[in-house]
């Protein structure tokens, strides 16, 4: 079997790259290791840039198949493909200062993005009406904490209820801060342990991929 398809190859690749990233971080190393670390970091930037083309190719292929089969909503696929390729081609051929390129950004992307984000406030109000119930001690504390923070955040709230400000600041600077720091520490430790499990070939995601690459063994 080709070495490129073996589980050991994937794990060895992860371990070798990890060594070149971790060791220069913790130790004073020869120049070639520092250069390798910089090269690996810069290479990922290039890979990320090129991965956009992977998405464009995959999306185009999928939408074309949908149009060909006249699947449900196939005309939307046509619109998506049309807009996407007009944007790509206008950017590549005419440049990013071209009128049509800027028009597409200002007319579609930016208003669309902003509008959908703004719709969130509606969903948050209905979520708030549903979630902040005085059902138990914890939910009561949560609700009162939320009320104090809301009063402090709103300029009108600070005007009408001046004592809510110091209470909200206390909640944010002590209680919320402690919880946030606990989260950050736990997440950092969890991420390190997950990375070590990956390098040891024990993480489910990697095992799943490797099984297919090795033909199910």
């Amino acid at each position: 079997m080709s070495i490129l398809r073996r589980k050991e190859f994937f794990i060895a690749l992860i371990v070798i790259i990890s060594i070149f990233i971790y060791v220069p971080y913790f130790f004073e190393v020869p120049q070639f290791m520092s250069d390798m670390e910089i090269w690996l970091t810069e290479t990922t930037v290039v890979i990320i840039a090129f991965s956009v083309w992977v998405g464009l190719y995959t999306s185009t292929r999928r939408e074309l198949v949908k149009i060909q089969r006249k699947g449900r909503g196939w005309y939307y696929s046509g619109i998506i493909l049309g807009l996407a390729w007009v944007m790509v081609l206008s950017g590549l051929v005419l440049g990013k200062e071209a009128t049509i390129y800027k028009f597409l950004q200002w007319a579609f992307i930016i208003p669309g993005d902003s509008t959908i984000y703004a719709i969130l406030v509606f969903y948050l109000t209905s979520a708030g009406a549903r979630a902040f119930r005085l059902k138990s001690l914890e939910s009561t504390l949560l609700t009162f904490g939320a009320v104090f923070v809301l009063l402090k955040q709103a300029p009108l709230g600070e005007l009408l209820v001046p004592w809510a400000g110091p209470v909200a600041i206390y909640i944010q600077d002590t209680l919320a801060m402690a919880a946030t720091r606990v989260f950050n520490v736990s997440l950092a430790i969890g991420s390190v342990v997950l990375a070590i499990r990956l390098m040891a070939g024990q993480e489910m995601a990697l095992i799943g991929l490797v099984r297919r690459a090795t033909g199910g063994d």
Partner: protein
Amino acid sequence: MGIELYPIATGKISGLIFFAVLIILTLYNLRSKKVPYIRRVPAIDAIEEGIGRATELGQPIFVSCGMSPRGVDAPTVAGLSMLTHSARMCARNDVRLIAPMGGSDQSYTVMELARDLVETQYQLEGKPESFNIDDMPFLSGRQFAWASAYCGMMMREKPATNIMVGVQYASAVYISEVGHEIGAMVISGTTYLSNIACLAASSDYVMIGEEMLAAGAYLSGDAGQLATIRTQDIGKLIFLAITVLGIVILTMGSNFVIDLLSS
């Protein structure tokens, strides 16, 4: 003023020691044969409940593995573990799995990995013909365009359960609310701290922080992997001990712990 110890880089000694301790403990625990006690994580257990619900109702489930702009990072790996587990359960129970991909520029790379993983699970369950790549469409590399399309699909397909685990931003609240509107059970999990409160308010079950990162090990049932969750707890205990020691020593007027951690 910290300690300097060549060839360790300046200011990295304590970090190196802690990192080394974590590596040794994790590798040691991976070899463990004894299944340790791990408390129930309701959100992870709810996944089976959700898939059971989908089986009874004859409805599909929706799964999202997140939209990290950093590609395949730790939360995305956790999300992929959830997706893999869900795919295996769906294949076993003949439930349709829909996993719309997208949300960030790096979703393209994650998508290819996710499709491979899901297809593998269907093959391992002996049902390769049940895998439908059209049920894992790439919707958009834009967060809100992806969320809009995701919600549209949910409104049409009426899933019994929606599972969103990974890097979930503001759009997850949007999706949770739509899930509630259509009567779906919503299970979510993210390490993006800023969004946890919103998800806790809008989801039925939520995995907070490292519960999600430990999910892969929790679901595997493997003694070794479960024991690595214990490593995380030991790490937290070490931090707790250092914190308490630091408080006491600083109160006594000494900067010893600060100097030690700065070394």
